[in-house]
């Protein structure tokens, strides 16, 4: 097993490559993009959860001085689009399905004028009966939201592996319960925005803060009815995505439609209110019934899930998210017999979608509590029950997921140690409790067609500096830095000698982008492949210059020399120049690619979904105020197995940020709606944890090496928030013996549960 110490750049605590720009305010976010003649777009949204549009009169709005265009569906090709199911339009066609849906839009010389014009657009609606609860929406006779989706069911999963009936009969203990999760908003510091330009030749250029450029291009092209190449997406600096900027919303489409109609660049930036209503799609909320069978020694014998997932009005990524909730956890522990039924159901609410964790934080909220419950009932230490069931290298899940590297047990050990678990358990104090949970996540997942690959190009400039051209993009998570480290390591040049380009669909090759904890693993492998190939070109040229066999050469700190004869070195710059400036010369440039060794799951959802799996264990110590119900997290520990840690600073940031979002999910967040209208769509009513709210947090990274990863690395970005809600709930149970089964665990609910317990 290779260790980080063997590397010179990988594993070092390096400063963010885009850090200087960000702290000095130089970084160009989409709001900073100003093009000559640029107009400002504003969107008119549906005030009704479900209504037919009878007529739209834009004439008054058009007359406002400074208004350049008002657009409705009549200005579009009326072609539906969507990540998995084409079920939404850029501007409503015929009817609206949720409060906030884009009905019309205005471009004007300034935002205030555009807003003024919005008020003058007259829309005649015929209200339709609406349905807000997923279970009710599945009933016969419920209002139909999409004509082609009977019982409002977008998707059904029904999978059984092994013999579930028999497995339950053979169990010594069965636990059963139902848990509900919530739609959680990303609350990225920067809202979604776009600046679109349209050239009469037919090409759209769109600056946007997306996490997934090429997928955005694909969807925008579909919505506009043009070819992919007719849309150029350029990524601006991105102020946080967390899944919310993976282009399931209409912001960029509307900007493009307005740009085409006006012939001017148009900027549409979501206000915070827009963002809550129809920007980043909040986490898919689910109702999860879990039934699990255990042997006396704590070994899991059977698991059965029934999930009702709330899709909201349009699908976005919810189908894949529901799939993850239904099946993913079966890779965390050694399962044999499992059954899972999941229903993804349309409702007249804000569409739900991708958020860090992608279904895991919902499923694990239920499953990890059931396991904890079993541990308590069997009188087994929760850390022990996790340990006896933990996946290990070579494990193949009932659904065909193949685990290569896995250090889950090590994570459990590290958590026990950091938390002083055994000691604290032995000296249990009243109203203070410990909880723990584990998780598994993928490092990229094959689901948008049979490809989970990445590609990158590296060119070596005449001064010896390498430039990575890559379309995966940087969303604030540190991917660009990790890629530069990987390239520097492979090329043998210092970190300062590596740069990475802005992601741009016209200039970089196809990449799926930042989702599924994939960029370091998949994109990193592609960069490494490009670097290997560029290195071969360097070595071939240097071998001529040094009159030595390429095999005998090493590149270190930007110098090439014959092993053992460092004094007679040439620099990479010398090599690049020599190769270029000669008759028939050529630059050093190489393209690399990688496609994970996974398979597209079959119709029974069997198949290894990812190239590598990452694991984590987390634990919390909480104190519960039994008079007010308030839960205070006294200490939190997180141990992660992400293979080789490429940049410890970045990795620690990922874990800290994930835990913060996880604690918000567990204790305070959640979109609340009444009749389809959000009642907390602002930062006064919707709180996220602030710096001051973070508990004492300790983290550790397992000694681990993923053989298929770049220098042994695998994914990390989502792992940290998957188990957190369950961790907290398990700790509360340990402290005061109650479980709150709906998120968030508010003090009021805790107090209520305590009262019921006394009864």
């Amino acid at each position: 097993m290779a260790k980080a110490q063997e590397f010179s750049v990988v594993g070092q605590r390096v400063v963010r490559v885009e850090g200087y720009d960000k702290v000095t305010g130089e970084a160009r976010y989409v709001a900073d993009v100003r093009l000559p003649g640029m107009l400002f777009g504003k969107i008119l949204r549906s005030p009704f959860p479900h209504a037919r549009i009878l007529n739209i009169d834009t004439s008054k709005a058009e007359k406002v001085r400074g208004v350049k265009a008002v657009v409705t569906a009549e200005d579009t090709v009326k072609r539906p689009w969507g990540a998995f199911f084409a079920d939404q339009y850029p501007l409503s066609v015929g009817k609206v399905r949720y409060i906030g849906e884009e009905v019309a839009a205005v471009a004007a010389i300034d935002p205030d004028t555009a807003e003024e014009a919005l008020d003058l657009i007259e829309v005649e609606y015929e209200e339709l009966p609406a349905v807000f609860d997923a279970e009710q929406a599945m009933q016969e006779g419920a209002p139909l939201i999409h004509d082609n989706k009977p019982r409002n069911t977008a998707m059904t999963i029904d999978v059984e592996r092994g013999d579930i009936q028999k497995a339950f009969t053979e169990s010594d203990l069965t636990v059963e319960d139902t848990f509900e999760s919530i739609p959680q908003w990303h609350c990225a510091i920067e809202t979604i925005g776009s600046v679109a330009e349209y050239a009469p030749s037919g090409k759209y250029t769109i600056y946007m803060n997306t996490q997934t450029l090429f997928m955005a291009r694909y969807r925008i092209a579909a919505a506009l009815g043009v070819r992919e190449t007719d849309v150029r997406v350029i990524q601006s600096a991105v102020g946080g995505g967390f899944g919310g900027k993976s282009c399931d919303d209409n912001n960029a489409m509307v900007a493009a439609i307005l740009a085409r109609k006006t012939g001017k660049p148009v900027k549409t930036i979501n206000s915070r209110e827009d963002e809550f209503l129809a920007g980043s799609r909040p986490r898919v909320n689910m109702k999860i019934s879990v039934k699990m069978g255990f042997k006396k020694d704590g070994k899991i014998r059977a698991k059965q899930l029934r999930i009702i997932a709330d899709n909201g009005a349009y699908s976005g990524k919810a189908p894949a998210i529901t799939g993850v909730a239904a099946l993913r956890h079966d890779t965390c522990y050694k399962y044999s017999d499992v059954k899972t039924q999941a229903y993804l159901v349309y409702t007249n609410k804000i569409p739900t979608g991708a958020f860090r964790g992608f279904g895991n934080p919902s499923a694990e909220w239920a499953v990890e509590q059931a396991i904890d419950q079993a541990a308590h009932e069997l009188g087994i230490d929760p850390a022990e029950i996790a340990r006896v069931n933990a996946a290990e290298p070579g494990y193949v899940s009932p659904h065909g997921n193949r685990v290569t590297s896995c250090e889950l047990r090590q994570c459990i050990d590290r958590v026990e140690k950091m938390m002083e678990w055994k000691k604290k358990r032995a000296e249990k104090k009243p109203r203070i409790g410990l909880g723990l949970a584990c998780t598994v996540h993928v490092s990229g997942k094959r689901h948008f067609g049979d490809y989970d690959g990445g590609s990158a190009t590296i060119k070596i400039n005449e001064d010896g500096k390498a430039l990575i051209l890559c379309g995966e993009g940087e969303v604030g998570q540190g991917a660009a830095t990790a890629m530069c480290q990987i390239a520097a390591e492979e090329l043998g040049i210092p970190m300062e000698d590596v740069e990475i380009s802005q992601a741009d669909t016209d200039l970089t090759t196809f990449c799926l982008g930042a989702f599924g904890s994939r960029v370091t693993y998949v994109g990193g492998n592609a960069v490494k492949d490009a670097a290997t190939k560029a290195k071969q070109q360097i070595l071939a040229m240097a071998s001529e210059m040094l009159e030595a066999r390429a095999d005998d050469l090493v590149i270190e700190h930007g110098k090439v020399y014959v092993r053992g004869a460092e004094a007679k070195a040439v620099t990479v710059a010398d090599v690049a120049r020599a190769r270029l400036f000669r008759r028939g010369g050529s630059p050093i440039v190489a393209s690399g690619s990688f496609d994970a060794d996974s398979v597209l799951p079959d119709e029974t959802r069997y198949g290894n979904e990812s190239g590598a799996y990452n694991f984590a264990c987390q634990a919390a110590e909480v104190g519960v105020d039994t008079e007010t119900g308030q839960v205070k997290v006294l200490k939190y520990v997180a141990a992660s197995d992400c293979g080789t840690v490429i940049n410890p600073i970045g990795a620690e940031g990922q874990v800290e940020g994930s835990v913060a979002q996880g604690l918000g999910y567990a204790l305070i967040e959640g979109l609340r709606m009444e009749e389809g209208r959000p009642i907390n769509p602002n930062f006064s009513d919707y709180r996220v944890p602030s710096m001051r709210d973070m508990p004492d947090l300790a983290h550790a990274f397992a000694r681990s090496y993923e053989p298929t990863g770049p220098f042994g690395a695998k994914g990390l970005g989502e792992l940290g928030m998957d188990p957190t809600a369950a961790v907290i709930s398990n700790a509360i149970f340990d402290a005061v013996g109650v479980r709150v089964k709906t998120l968030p665990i508010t003090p009021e609910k805790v107090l209520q549960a305590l009262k019921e317990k006394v009864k």
Partner: protein
Amino acid sequence: MVKFEYFEPNSLEEACALLKEHGEDARLIAGGTALIIMMRQRLLNPRVVISLADIPDFDFIRFDAKDGLRIGAGARHRDIELAPVVQEHYPLLYETFRKVAQPRIRNMGTIGGNLVQGDPLTDPGASLIALDAKITLRNAGGHRVIPVENFFVDYYQTDLQPGEILTEIHVPPSLPGLAWAHIKFLPRSQEDFATVGVALTMRLNGDRCQDIRLAFNSVAPIIMRAKRAEEILRRQKVDDDRVGKMAEVASTEVDPMDDNRGSAEYKRELVRVLVRRAVKQALERSATGKQGAKQASAPA
């Protein structure tokens, strides 16, 4: 935001004159932390905005042992929090202002804007009521002085009359040995508005309570004083029974509503718990004689 005309008068007289001239169309702006949000959401669309930023000496903080504390309406939360005279003589105020939002807001928002906004979720009002503070309201024709507790009329409504400017807050001289407590119950985030806010002052004589003032924020349409609850303890021996009774009465005196911070019923329950805790804290402070700011307790 709807377009508006903007003035920066250089004196109170000028500001009053402008207010008079533009009447209903005009709005004063101090720190803007409350007003701008409402204007951006187009809940308020004033045609004229009059800034108080250039009024000289509008943010003073002066203390005199005989007269007490006088604070200009333009003083920012942060100015008040950090003023040595406040920390030394009015630990309850220090404790309150350090818990207002976070430094970004405290550096912008003013005490005048805070009170005039009439937002029942905000903190300073309850503590000012507990300290029996008064405010000065001025218009083009003269001025009047009223107790803070009479200023709050209804949800987001105060007794500020058209043409009036709040100019000064006056807190009576600090009494040596005054027992006090402030609890801002913040289960969601340290930067949130209070789910329940309690401000309490008690004058003690041995184990008797000579006088008491108990005020709340976040549990009624206004920042309110709980007079019926106070009566349970006023001129009585302070014991668990009476304190419990006072807490009980307080929980019926408040008039909370359901919101994102909890149900009305839960907030009443919290009032019961937090009143008892506030008395306990106040007694502990007075028993140890440690009333200074440094001993201020963490939020509940």
